[in-house]
């Protein structure tokens, strides 16, 4: 059954990819694509639910299914095997569930696009690889899924590849991911040489066996985390995610919000058996996470593209998840993955609905006053915004609050300064999200008359999905995911002395969320001079934030330019032209020169030839009489 879950989307990819594209001659119409492209993921979801029931019925003993024995090398063998335990169940439900609704959303969003069949094929192949990732038993299968989702992401970011900027964005995403994968591969090699297997459950058990492990857990942890940095857009490999907004909005929702970018979080949570023994690596993860969260939030304060705000928000929320992982609260991080999937997908799809309504406009400076015109989109967007800001009792409140609590009080790395930075980030999150809500939907309209005339609510295939996701954002917090995962991923112990601080901290986080809401309402709900004055006062800071701290330019100067210089000077001019071509030309010149020298013997003078015969006879005779 597990194999079937994974294979159904692959089938969808093959059918749509061949029959609905130019490859197969466009033999089927959009209806076929819709039925196959949406039906198969929904079927996968149903199977996942069935597997969850089978898991529960079996007392939560992990289901293992070996699909194919790939290679036998020496004593060990590499198999394609699937592993279904509590963690895999949660992740698979999110992937197939949210994935299916986004597929349904795409029916309406991509209706008029000529690449309709290709789009659903790519979405299906993404789902296939993502399921390989979450259901795989060994790191090798996970890595295949890891690379596969990277490929799908590349294909989908550059979906409208006629515009060169989109293609470049896809390339940037893929290459940045590959940089992280180097660390991932090294970690895998280390694990394989030490344990002789890449099965994650076996590796976790080996680390937990009590004896001192043969390889440093922190080293392995750091290497795997480098891979997670690339995939989950943490500093310093976060640069690809904002550019990835060049793809269609369903792609941004599915891949760059709900599922693919959480693969790094899943990896660390899955390898928790290693990280509980790696305090140094965990500390690094926590610091990187909270730093990323803070910096991404500051950049999101001044962005003017609706999708870019959401992109930086995603980076920031991923930072929160890694913060949770760093202090040992693995189940809480997964909880935040689930709630984040709900409200971020809702936000992205809502943004897509707005863009659809405005006929392609993405700049919030040219929006405003849409609340009355597209009410359904507005209300779902508002619910999701409140969720991400952390207003109780919506989903984001529960998960974010747990993270803040454990960052303060966990015995495995919690510290007050982590909480302070995280709380500041939470404040900024509330502020910029409500800023986005005000600028987009409320206040006076800044649209052009022509655009305003054509504003219309999206079709039911899109708004229905928005409603579903908004409801989940509202009540999803009551799904006690950490409690569900506790038997597998134990929550860390908390300092005894700090127990009393729990309730005050909850109050503080609610106050911060409300403060963010109030500040946004004040600045953006009133006349625009308030914002202008603020911007003028902090003009320098505004410039730095708008330019995303000049990270891309820094990379281009520090890494890009030296590499190009080396390629040009060392490899092209020195290596290729001087050495390789020079060697070949040199050999040819050698031949030619030798020929020229030897040609001097051919003078045409018979006397010389006869004399050479004489000299040859004499020489040969003397030589043979010496050595005879």
């Amino acid at each position, binding site marked *: 059954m597990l194999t079937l879950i994974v294979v159904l989307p692959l089938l969808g990819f093959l059918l749509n990819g061949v029959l609905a594209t130019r490859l197969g001659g466009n033999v089927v119409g959009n209806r076929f694509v819709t039925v196959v492209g949406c039906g198969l993921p929904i079927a996968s979801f149903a199977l996942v639910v069935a597997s969850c029931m089978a898991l529960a019925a079996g007392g939560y003993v992990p289901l293992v299914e070996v699909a194919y024995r790939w290679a036998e090398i020496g004593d060990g063998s590499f198999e394609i095997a699937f592993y279904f335990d509590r963690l895999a169940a949660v992740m698979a439900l999110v992937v197939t569930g949210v994935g299916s609704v986004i597929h349904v959303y795409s029916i309406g969003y991509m209706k008029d696009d000529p690449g309709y069949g290709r789009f659903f094929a790519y979405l299906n192949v993404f789902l296939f690889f993502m399921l390989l990732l979450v259901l795989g038993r060994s790191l090798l299968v996970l890595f295949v899924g890891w690379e596969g989702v990277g490929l799908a992401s590349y294909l989908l970011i550059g979906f409208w590849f006629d515009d060169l900027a989109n293609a470049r964005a896809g390339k940037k995403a893929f290459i940045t991911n590959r940089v992280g994968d180097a660390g991932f591969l090294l970690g895998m090699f280390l694990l394989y040489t030490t344990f002789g297997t890449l099965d994650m459950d076996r590796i976790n058990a080996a680390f937990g066996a009590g004896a001192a492990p043969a390889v440093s857990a922190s080293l392995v942890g750091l290497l795997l985390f480098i891979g997670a940095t690339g995939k989950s857009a943490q500093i310093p490999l976060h640069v690809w995610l904002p550019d990835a907004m060049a793809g269609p909005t369903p792609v941004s929702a599915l891949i760059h919000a709900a599922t693919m970018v959480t693969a790094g979080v899943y990896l660390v949570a899955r390898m928790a058996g290693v990280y509980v023994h790696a305090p140094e690596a965990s500390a690094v993860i926590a610091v990187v996470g909270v730093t990323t969260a803070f910096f991404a939030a500051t950049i999101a304060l001044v962005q003017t593209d609706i999708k870019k705000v959401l992109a930086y928000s995603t980076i920031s929320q991923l930072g929160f998840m890694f913060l949770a992982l760093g202090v040992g609260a693995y189940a809480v991080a997964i909880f935040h993955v689930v709630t984040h999937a709900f409200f971020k997908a809702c936000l992205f799809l809502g943004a897509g609905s707005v863009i659809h309504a405005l006929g392609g406009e993405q700049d919030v400076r040219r929006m405003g006053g849409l609340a009355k015109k597209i009410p359904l989109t507005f209300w779902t967007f508002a619910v999701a915004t409140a969720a991400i800001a952390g207003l109780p009792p919506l989903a984001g409140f529960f998960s974010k609050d747990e993270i803040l609590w454990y960052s303060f009080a966990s015995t495995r790395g919690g510290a007050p300064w982590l909480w302070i930075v995280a709380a500041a980030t939470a404040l900024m999150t509330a502020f910029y999200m409500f800023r986005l809500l005000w600028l987009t939907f409320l206040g006076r309209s800044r649209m052009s008359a022509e655009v305003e005339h054509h504003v219309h609510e999206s079709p039911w295939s899109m708004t229905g999905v928005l409603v579903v996701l908004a409801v989940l954002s509202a009540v999803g917090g009551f799904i006690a995911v950490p409690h569900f995962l506790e038997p597998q991923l134990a929550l860390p112990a908390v300092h005894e002395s700090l127990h009393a601080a729990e309730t005050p901290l909850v109050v503080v986080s609610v106050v911060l969320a409300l403060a963010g809401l109030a500040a946004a309402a004040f600045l953006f709900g009133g006349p625009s001079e308030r914002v202008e004055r603020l911007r003028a006062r902090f003009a320098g800071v505004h410039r730095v934030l708008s330019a995303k701290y000049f990270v891309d330019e820094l990379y281009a100067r520090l890494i890009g330019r030296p590499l190009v210089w080396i390629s040009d000077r060392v490899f092209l001019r020195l290596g290729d032209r001087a050495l390789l071509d020079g060697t070949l030309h040199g050999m040819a010149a050698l031949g030619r020169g030798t020929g020229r020298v030897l040609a001097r013997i051919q*003078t045409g003078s018979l006397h010389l030839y006869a004399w050479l015969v004489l000299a040859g006879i004499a020489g040969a005779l003397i030589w043979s009489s010496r050595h005879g």
Partner: protein
Amino acid sequence: MDRTQLLIGVAVALFSIGLVGVVVRRNVLVMLMCMELMLNGVNLSLITFAQQTATTVGAVVVFLVFVVATVEIALAIPIVLLLVRDKHTLDIGAYSELRG
């Protein structure tokens, strides 16, 4: 020095003089004649050794040398004639067109 050594010495001398003659003389016909001298030197050495070992093979080879020398001269003179008809000189320096 007995007879054998004398005759071998003469044969070697004749051969060397012939070869050097080809090297130093310019006239085409004189060079041809020096080549004949070389052949004669070889003939003498063959006969000497044939006599010494009391076999007939030396004489047989000498006869063949005669035949070859005849054939060679029968063709060389016409070639020289044609060359001279073209270049109007017997100087071998005029015939050095096959240069590298």
